[in-house]
């Protein structure tokens, strides 16, 4: 029976570096609680719970990428940032990682700070910067929304993967001869391919939610266009 490890396992990064990133992650999540509270109302709270549960579910669905013997799965950062915003979205991804580490033996508990930093902090930051940029420059159409979700998801996965390479540079436990180019290369290429899958899943999900309940897509509410075109808000127009 093979083990299914999706996240950084114990022993991959040394203790001191893992501890430093635990502090970084804790500070970042505390900040997200403070900022996220401004977004969290009676409507967003259950939606955010759903987003976390949905990310947990889809992370179980490893899909093959076009490299022999390698699979990928959703990280969920761009999806969460799109649907519930960057602050609450980061908390959603962090909750998933905590549940996986504490209950499902996936990702060392001592490595939680590293995993949270990569996927909930770096991944979400990259995703939301791109979402904010693209939603302003692209046309306010379904295609524009889909492209935004796809690009933000793809880039966020690659950036999160490079976050791990940086962590390995700082505290990797195996001496790779001082040469991280090989690791950086395989991480970047495999996560570029995974990013395509992430982009397709994210775009499909976001477009579906936007069709059913556009008012539940945070990015469409928060990043209003200069000309309020076809964004239906339910009783929210002043």
């Amino acid at each position, binding site marked *: 029976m093979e083990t299914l490890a999706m996240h950084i396992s114990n022993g*991959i990064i040394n203790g001191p570096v893992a501890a430093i990133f635990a502090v970084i992650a804790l500070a970042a999540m505390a900040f997200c609680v403070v900022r996220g*509270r401004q977004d969290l109302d009676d409507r967003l709270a259950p939606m955010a719970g759903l987003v976390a549960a*949905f990310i947990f579910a889809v992370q179980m669905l490893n899909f093959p990428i076009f490299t022999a*013997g390698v699979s990928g799965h959703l990280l969920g950062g761009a999806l969460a940032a799109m649907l519930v915003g960057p602050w609450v979205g980061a908390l959603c991804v962090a909750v998933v990682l905590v549940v996986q580490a504490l209950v499902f*033996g996936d990702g*060392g508990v001592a490595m939680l700070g590293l995993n949270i930093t990569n996927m909930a902090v770096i991944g979400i930051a990259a995703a939301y910067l791109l979402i904010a940029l693209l939603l302003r420059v692209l046309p306010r159409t379904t295609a524009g929304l889909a492209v935004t979700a796809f690009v933000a998801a793809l880039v966020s996965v690659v950036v999160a993967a490079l976050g791990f390479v940086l962590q390995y540079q700082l505290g990797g436990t195996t001496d790779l001869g001082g040469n991280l180019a090989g690791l950086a290369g395989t991480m970047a290429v495999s996560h570029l391919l995974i990013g395509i899958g992430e982009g397709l899943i994210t775009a499909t999900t976001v477009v579906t939610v936007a069709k059913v309940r556009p008012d539940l897509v945070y990015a469409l509410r928060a990043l209003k266009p200069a000309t309020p075109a076809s964004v239906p808000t*339910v*009783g929210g127009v002043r």
Partner: protein
Amino acid sequence: MTLRKRSWGFVVGGLLVALLLAGVVSNFASAHPDGLDSSLRKGCTFDADDEITGGNCPAQEEREHEIGGPLADYGIAGLDNDFLSTGLSGVLGVLLTFGVAGGAFWLVRRRGPEGARAGADPAGAGGQPDAGRPSATATGQG
């Protein structure tokens, strides 16, 4: 009030989709190591039990998980039926994640003046949070 109800309807519907994905579709997921795991294993050779037999790779110092537990590796310990084991662990994970995340978000949610007004005036429940949002996000962008 109707908006509130429809929001909950959406959440319940979404939860059912998540349960289906984690409970059933998860059994058709690829069993190959993911991008991170495969990158870490590159350079080492493995035997049939997935133990490292030689080489030099980032995964070679990997250690056991601190907790493990009955749901470790997305299965139910002692349940021989792989389909049920994976599916049930997925269902439990979705419910647990929803409970933990939804519960925590519900507890820390904003219940300031806006929230109180929205609660007291059901007809305006949908409008109030939206009206307050642009200013909140304007600071968020800064």
